[in-house]
């Protein structure tokens, strides 16, 4: 039986890359089950047979620990998400300035896709950024809300929205378009924590993977995928 990773949707692609790298060192390839962080957390409380939980936030792992469903010692910040504003090819008005804060201020678009601020951390970060830029009130009636960052990207990629707030990790995948890396100071860090679960079918292996996750190889891969890795990995705030 392989190791089972429950991975927040935004990190699923990266998790597959990590699983491949982990397997290259020998052993069976871990399986990746993805879903929204909230869904995965509920499943874990109802007895889902996962070994590790890679959440998109810090809150849900903490809740699981509080319920005795995760090992407190194992909690690690494996990545910090980076928010970008993305625009598909051809959506920019002619002679527009390069994509950036000015694009939002200029207000020359009809739809801006974000993901649900109540369920997805990237959504909350998008709202914070809009407030920090002082444009929230002018664009709030143009927001369309997707269920996840992936869906927000779909809204824009299909042309239905001209702009979308998504994760940097997604736009690395080469969808064309242009992106603007939203400065970290405009929103609270998107801290993504991982824990080993109390009912893990393979606790030993799970801790081994956790160690791998904090190792240099994994850090390099995570960074390349579009995340920031905390300076002192392994010590969760």
């Amino acid at each position, binding site marked *: 039986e392989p190791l089972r990773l429950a991975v927040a949707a935004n990190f699923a692609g990266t998790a597959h890359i990590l699983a491949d790298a982990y397997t290259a060192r020998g052993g069976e390839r871990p399986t990746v089950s993805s879903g929204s962080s*909230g869904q995965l957390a509920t499943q874990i409380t109802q007895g889902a047979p996962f070994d590790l939980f890679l959440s998109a936030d810090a809150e849900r792992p903490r809740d699981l620990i509080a319920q005795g469903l995760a090992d407190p010692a194992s909690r690690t910040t494996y990545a910090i998400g980076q928010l970008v504003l993305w625009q598909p090819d051809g959506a920019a008005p002619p002679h527009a300035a390069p994509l950036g804060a000015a694009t939002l201020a200029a207000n020359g678009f009809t739809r801006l896709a974000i993901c649900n601020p*109540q369920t997805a951390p990237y959504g909350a970060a998008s709202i914070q950024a809009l407030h920090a830029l002082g444009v929230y009130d002018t664009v709030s009636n143009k927001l369309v809300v997707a269920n996840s960052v992936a869906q927000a990207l779909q809204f824009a990629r299909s042309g239905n929205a001209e702009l979308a707030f998504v994760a940097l990790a997604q736009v690395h995948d080469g969808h064309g378009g242009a992106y603007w890396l939203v400065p970290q100071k405009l929103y609270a860090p998107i801290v993504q924590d991982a824990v080993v679960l109390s009912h893990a079918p393979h606790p030993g292996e799970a801790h081994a993977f956790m160690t791998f996750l904090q190792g240099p190889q994994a850090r390099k891969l995570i960074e390349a995928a579009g995340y920031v890795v905390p300076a002192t990995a392994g010590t969760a705030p």
Partner: protein
Amino acid sequence: MSAMAPDVQQAAWLTIRLALTTTLFLMIVSLPLAWWLARPGPWWKPVLGAIISLPLVLPPSVLGYYFLIAFGPSGPGGWVARLWGGRTLAFSFPGLVVGSLLYVLPFAVQPIQNAFRAIGRRPIEVAATLGASPWRTFWTVAVPLAWPGIVTAAVLGFAHSVGEFGIVLMIGGDIPGRTRVLSVALYDYVENARWHDANMIACGMVLFSFIVIVLLSALRGEIRRTDA
């Protein structure tokens, strides 16, 4: 909950409007379609009937993605939207209606089609010998005799458009007052483990739908049938 109340009210009202509008259009589309499919015809007629069921085999969220492309600026939906100066059919109430409609269509067409078939040839022939035009025959003979199937279609269509969610989520954009229906709001609560609010809404939806379904079913009445 109290802070959410106006929001929930708006979503509830939108849900009712969406479900009723979808059910209405569902009936308008599926009655003639089922009638046409029920009559004998060339070999490709049943194949077309099968094609209508196909949207079901795709997960709603995936289907929603295809709709998104079809509704977008470079799809047919965009051309239509341009007629009134819009860019896209997505994120709008009409878009939701179209999406839900396509998704619930098979649940409506098949029962109605069976009901039309079960009538048999004779009542239609009798109506013809009494001088009733095909149009009159359809409304005064075929529809009343297929009534239980039609009510079933309406019940399933209504219930499913109240609960449908994947597609609405995909093409709606969760805009309060325009596309944020109860099922989406409910999903948010559940995602955030706000069980109390979620349970309240779920109970409300079930209760309301129960009443509508019982009323609809009462409309079905008891069909009187000769034994001959």
